[in-house]
């Protein structure tokens, strides 16, 4: 389905256009992962697939939760949950930059009238031991995509090298609709972003900053950490990884509650990372139960 002038701009159309474009590039259009994650990079469709050596092309929408970014629905461009469009191409196409540019053109953006820049921005996630070299893509000064060549994940050197394109759907849609307020965006023809998400933002901000039970969170973190280790020891690495993702989310909530000092914060990140490294190694050496 290509963008037509008479179609109203909406997040729904944006997603469908991106799906259509990347499916044409040979991507498997995956469903969103059904756990709380901070970024599309952390989901199994990215994390595990970049670790082995078989080719992989996937594209999916991923709701991403970052409790500390909550603003009670009062800030027009900052939310505790936003939607990423995640693409992984492994090995990266030689002309992937041009293909990415073509994806923007396919959304109807006349790049000739705009300033598109690839601005140096190397990305890293200490929790999953991943880092890469790349850029933030700026469109007239607005960051719309993180473009990264992954070099390591789980502390392991990757080969072949995957390219990760993470579009910020709300940002991109704000550009397309020419709006300053995220909540004014259209998700579908007659449902706005605010209709869908304003209450959620208000309540979750209150929860993350003021109400979440920190004792429960700390206990949950510790108990799940043990469970993850025991599953790793039994070579059930896929369920173990899910549990690490849960730990990571509990950590984010403890952070937004202001319940962890910077020392503890380094300690907890390190603990998750230790588990994820083991998982990555076992996945690589095919030590899992399957």
């Amino acid at each position, binding site marked *: 389905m290509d963008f037509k002038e008479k179609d109203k701009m909406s997040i729904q159309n944006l997603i469908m256009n991106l799906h259509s474009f990347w499916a044409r590039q040979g991507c498997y259009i995956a469903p969103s992962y059904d756990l709380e994650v901070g970024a599309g990079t952390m989901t199994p469709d990215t994390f595990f697939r970049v670790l082995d050596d078989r080719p992989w092309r996937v594209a999916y929408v991923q709701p991403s939760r970052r409790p500390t970014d909550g603003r009670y629905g009062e800030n027009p461009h900052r939310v505790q949950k936003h939607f990423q469009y995640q693409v992984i191409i492994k090995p*990266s196409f030689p*002309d992937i930059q041009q293909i990415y540019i073509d994806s923007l053109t396919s959304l109807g953006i006349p790049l000739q*009238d*705009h300033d598109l820049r690839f601005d140096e921005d190397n990305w890293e996630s200490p929790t999953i031991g991943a880092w890469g*070299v790349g850029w933030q893509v700026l469109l007239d*000064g*607005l960051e719309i995509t993180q473009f990264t060549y992954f070099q390591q994940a789980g502390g392991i050197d990757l080969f072949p090298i995957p390219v990760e394109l993470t579009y910020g759907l709300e940002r991109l849609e704000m*550009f397309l609709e020419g709006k300053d307020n995220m909540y004014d965006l259209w998700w579908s023809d007659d449902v706005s972003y605010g209709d869908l998400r304003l209450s959620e933002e208000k309540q979750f901000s209150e929860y993350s900053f003021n109400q979440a039970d920190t004792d429960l969170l700390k206990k949950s973190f510790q108990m799940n950490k043990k469970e993850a280790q025991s599953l790793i020891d039994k070579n059930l690495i896929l369920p173990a990884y899910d549990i690490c993702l849960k730990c990571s989310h509990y950590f984010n909530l403890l952070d937004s509650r*202001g319940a962890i000092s*910077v020392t503890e914060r380094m300690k907890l990140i390190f603990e998750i990372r230790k588990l994820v490294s083991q998982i990555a190694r076992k996945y690589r050496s095919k030590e899992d139960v399957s």
Partner: protein
Amino acid sequence: MQFLLEINTEEMPKSHIETALRQLKDSLTEELKLRDIRVSQVRTYGTCRRLVVVSDFSPRQKDKEELLIGPPKSVSLTEDGSFTPAAKGFAKSQKIKLSELEFIKTEKGEYVGLKKVLKGLPTQDILKQILPKIISNLSFPKMMRWSDSPLRFSRPIKNILCLFNQKTLPFTIGGINSSHFSSGHRIHFPRKIKVRSFSEYKKALKKNKVIIDQSARKKMILQQIEKKLSPLNATLFSDEKLLDKLVFDVEHPHVFLGSFPAEYLKLPLEILSTAMREGQNLFSVVQGKKQLPYFIGVADAYRDNKALIRKGNERVLKARLEDARFFWKQDIKSSLSDKSKSLDRIIFQEKLGNYDEKTKRLEKIVSYIADKLEAKKEKKSLLQAASLCKADLLTEMVREFSDLQGRVGGLYAKEEGKPIPVWKAIYEHYQPLSLEDPSPSQLTGAILSIADKLDSTIGVLGIGIEVTGSRDPFGLRRNAQGLCKIILEKRYDFSFSRLLDKVLVIYGDRFLKTKNEIKENSLQFFKNRMQHIFEKQGYRYDLIHAALGSGIDNLLFSHLRLKALDQLKDSPQFEPMILIAKRVNNILRDHPRYKVNEEFFSEKEERDLFTSFSIIEDNALPLIAKGDFSRAQKIVFRIRSVINIFFDNVLVMVEEKRIRRNRLALLQAISALLIQIADYSQIVVTGSDKN
């Protein structure tokens, strides 16, 4: 013949472009010169996506003449003029015909032989060989891999254009074949362009909206900025670093002028320009010192007729400024003093405690330094600045713009009405960030900066973290250099060694190592930093070692020592005195300390030496105490003639213990005086190190 190379990549950081061009120029020149190919006029150009080298090389290697020498003529020819077996044997071994043999005149006489001409290889054959190696050997601060390519490079390579003498120079690297094609501007004219020469290349690229020459792009940017700003009677708020980055970030600069709502001008200039620079690469616009509600941006385009670029940037900036204003409003709801009550929630370093503890240490350290510098009236402001200087770490503003720490604290303190010695001290206490950055302008700021940097340095060294050139996560080297720079610039005269002691006492018992160990490590660390500073100032390396060899108890004095040595280094008395000092050192090696007893002098020369030395010492010591090493040195050098007479007439290492030890004691006393001025044994003398 003209050589043109363009390596087309994905966007490279500016530092990578510069080092790549430098390496390409150097390796090409070197490799070709090594192979006797003439290289002239290597020019390099770059954009974020292209590395360009253009030059002129001779078409082939210089022919080499090889001289094959055989037996002398005298034994090569028989009486009847035919060749002897010796000559025939030589010709056979060299695989040449007898008819090719020549007679070659050498210094030793005439010999039979052959002048062989090794024809030089065509340059293009050599280039085909060396170019893949040169390119794949380019090294960058960070290398990356992509796809399934075996290459490691700064960023993925997409295309290689290589011409020699107007024809494609074919070679392959990482699966990419060189060709005679380049391409135009990635968005506006992405088409393939065929070229045969540099001038054609430059013109074609310009037509396709790529300006290959970085100095031309810089000129364009500055001209366009001038054009936009002169109607407003305004100028750019200078940001050389940003300008240099943008010169490389765009292949075709298009400057645009945007505006933002004037209400945001209530925000301080530092916050406005940081919000503009970070993430959007925009310049602030000023009229003298007054900030105007405009900004300048540089797009990679050649027009903006629909004003979409400008409007887009305005929208993004407004959102950023709105955030900044929100942060400011939130932050000023509570005072820095109130905020500082939560400093215990922020860890400074895992083993070094939180920022509340650091603040308390800073208060003690600045108090000590203020006493040593006799800064009584500034003490109150100093203590207040110290107690508040880290509170801005708890602000929303610093959380968003971490580069602004210190300055934001100062601005909030100013907003609260704190006096200049307090708010400016907080504002400037991270300065200098580098040796080129200015030191704090106030005495309070200077002392606070020294205290903060020293507290961090001692702490990190104390817990045993190793600092090397490539691993310095806390920026300790920069910290220590900044500290030294302040002390030297402001000429602060106090015992650095005792300050270290004091800081160690203030830290208490949290370190595993002993205080002495940490102090020694720290002194060595600071010695290295002082060496670096002096090297950058251009002093001779051996003079630096000599000056630092006296110890860095007083940093200012180290500098004064160095200056004294530097002043005298070319005078005729300098080197003879160095030789004497070295001779004394050699004699004294491995001997324990002895004390002089005047009764045990037996020779006139040693009594004379002792008398002269005593007078010299009496005159020099007060000068040394004041740091007047220049004059002290001149006085001490007067010992030269009497010590020479001593050496000429007196044997130090005599049998009799009492006399021998006494003579050693005298030399030790002299050496002890010398070392207070400099470790002269470190100084290199021209000619030999004869005694």
